[in-house]
């Protein structure tokens, strides 16, 4: 079996039928991950118990038990997910030594279904960023071009996936943090409808926007991973109780009669890189040729998506991150003696030293937006526009099954190119944040390669709980692109 190319189901089937042992699969990916990691810095921690986890899977198989549809499949986990007994940092100094006493529900579900955890993946600190440069553990590099960013915030997941250091990986997406790095690195990245995957045990950034999802090398793998990660969880008050469909089994690439929406506003301003523009146009014309109907739709308030997103995300972040106080867990500044320290000084010094620049910037922005005199004009106003935006999307989805767009205006940018101008970096998220504001499912599927050999993805979004339509269209695009199972080979 070629583990570089095998689907998740093929690996699990081989393990269940003893054609490949979970241990062999684990060693194959772990060796590859450890060998390649120094070049791209995708991992923060390796899980040295991976071989033991694999042996347990093999023992289950030997006893005639079924470890599940991910039997022996090696996964990488973004460092936002709590993993029992395995250091979880959110790429922050403030959590540098945090070892969770429990698993995030999404991680527990992967393990329950047979997955082996190889380690924890690098990212922007607290998932705040679009380049994975804001990490206490150093920037992630793009495996297609080491001078470029991997995207963010799930940059470690996307880069590791592109190099096939893992069979699949998890990410979190608050404003594009799965889809954008997936596009920059040439892998599939999907987030389901808000509420589908439990947020329990995932370090909170902006709770009303945060949603987890998988990064994989194929649409089929994404569909299977979503099925396993989604489901009602009593520990998350926003968790959806709707049944999780058999997305993988029901995959259907036939586009005959499907309505593909094109968001007028996304193409008005120009500013698209010519190769991204060409890829998007090609995607539309090929789907049309396969029988899809292309429909122009309008969501005028997407014009305000960036302000809305950053006002809401920063406000929620400033509240969520108040828990890091140097008392119960995480980093605490050095104090000679606590006896004469004022409590506020104790908190402020610890937080000032423990958080990185971008995290502090967003805490400041959020605190400002929530402070007396500004709350109405910023946080409250953004929430009002957010409702109107969601309603506009509902109307748009009366006319189409999915909306197709670029993921970003251009392929991966150079390391250090945008880090000094935060607003420029924020504007990078123009095509992805609306999905989170409206709580819609969205994904990125590799579709083209630029002249400079950088991947270009296409974004698909669907109405609430219509993941199947999104996955079907992604499967059709994957077929057209010929890029299924793409593995970066520049190293």
């Amino acid at each position, binding site marked *: 079996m070629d583990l570089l190319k095998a689907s998740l189901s093929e690996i699990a089937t081989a393990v269940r039928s003893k054609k490949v042992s979970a241990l062999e699969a684990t060693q194959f990916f772990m060796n590859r991950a450890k060998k390649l990691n120094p070049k791209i810095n995708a991992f923060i921690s390796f899980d040295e118990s991976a071989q033991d986890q694999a042996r347990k899977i093999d023992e289950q198989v030997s006893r005639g038990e079924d470890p599940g549809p991910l039997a022996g499949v090696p996964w990488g986990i973004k460092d936002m997910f709590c993993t029992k007994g395995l250091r979880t940092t959110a790429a922050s100094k403030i959590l540098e*030594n*945090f*070892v969770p*006493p*429990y698993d995030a529900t999404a991680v527990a579900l992967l393990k329950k279904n047979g997955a082996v955890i190889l380690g924890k993946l690098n990212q922007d600190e607290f998932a705040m960023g679009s380049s994975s440069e804001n990490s206490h553990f150093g920037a992630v590099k793009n495996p297609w071009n080491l001078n470029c960013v991997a995207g963010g915030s799930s940059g470690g997941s996307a880069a590791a996936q592109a190099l096939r250091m893992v069979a699949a990986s998890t990410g979190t997406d608050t404003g594009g943090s799965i889809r954008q790095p997936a596009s920059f690195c040439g892998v599939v990245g999907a987030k389901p*409808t*808000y*509420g589908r995957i439990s947020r329990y045990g995932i370090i909170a950034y902006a709770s*009303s*926007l945060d949603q987890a999802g998988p990064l994989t090398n194929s649409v089929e793998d994404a569909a299977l991973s979503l099925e396993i990660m989604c489901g009602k969880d009593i520990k998350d*008050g*926003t968790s959806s109780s709707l049944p999780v469909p058999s997305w993988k089994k029901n995959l259907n690439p036939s586009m005959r009669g499907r309505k593909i929406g094109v968001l007028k506003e996304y193409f008005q301003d120009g500013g698209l890189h010519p190769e991204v523009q060409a890829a998007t146009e090609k995607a539309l014309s090929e789907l049309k040729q396969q029988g899809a109907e292309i429909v122009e739709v309008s969501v005028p*308030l997407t014009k*305000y998506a960036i*302000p*809305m997103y*950053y006002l809401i995300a920063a406000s929620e972040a400033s509240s969520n991150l108040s828990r890091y106080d*140097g*008392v*119960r*867990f*995480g*980093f605490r500044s050095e104090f000679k003696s*606590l*006896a004469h320290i004022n*409590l*506020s*000084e104790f908190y*402020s010094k610890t*937080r*000032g030293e423990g*958080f990185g*620049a971008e995290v*502090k*910037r967003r*805490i*400041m*922005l959020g*605190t*400002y937006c929530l*402070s007396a005199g500004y709350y109405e*004009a*910023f946080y*409250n*106003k*953004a*929430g*009002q*526009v*957010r*409702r*109107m935006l*969601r309603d506009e999307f509902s109307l748009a989805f009366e006319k189409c099954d999915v909306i197709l767009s670029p993921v970003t205006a251009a392929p991966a940018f150079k390391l250090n190119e945008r880090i000094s101008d*935060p*607003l420029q970096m*924020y504007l990078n998220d123009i095509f992805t944040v609306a999905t*989170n*504001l409206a*709580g819609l499912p969205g994904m990125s599927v590799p579709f083209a390669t630029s002249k400079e050999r950088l991947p270009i993805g296409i974004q698909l979004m669907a109405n*609430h709980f219509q993941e199947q339509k999104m996955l079907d269209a992604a499967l059709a695009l994957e077929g057209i692109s010929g890029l299924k199972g793409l593995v970066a080979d520049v190293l």
Partner: protein
Amino acid sequence: MSQDKISVEEISRIAKLAQLQLSAEEVSNYSQQLSKAIGYFEQISQVQTARVEPLVTPTEIENILRKDEVKTETSSEEILRNAPHKTGSLFTVPPVV
């Protein structure tokens, strides 16, 4: 940078609210950067939103209630393992009262 929307004094006030100790350089940088960002975000005021209820979570959900039962999921020992400083079975903190 006297035209900055968010002055260094305002930044210092916000930092205090957020319990963040910032260096003089950080205060100056954040004053400029947040002024620029807020300047851009202010365009949101152009949208007419009279009588619109703010959306606080994207999918409408009812209050979810469950029985208030004690369940042991972890031990205090395990929790205290992550404490940066502890005294016996207690977290060590500066004087609070």
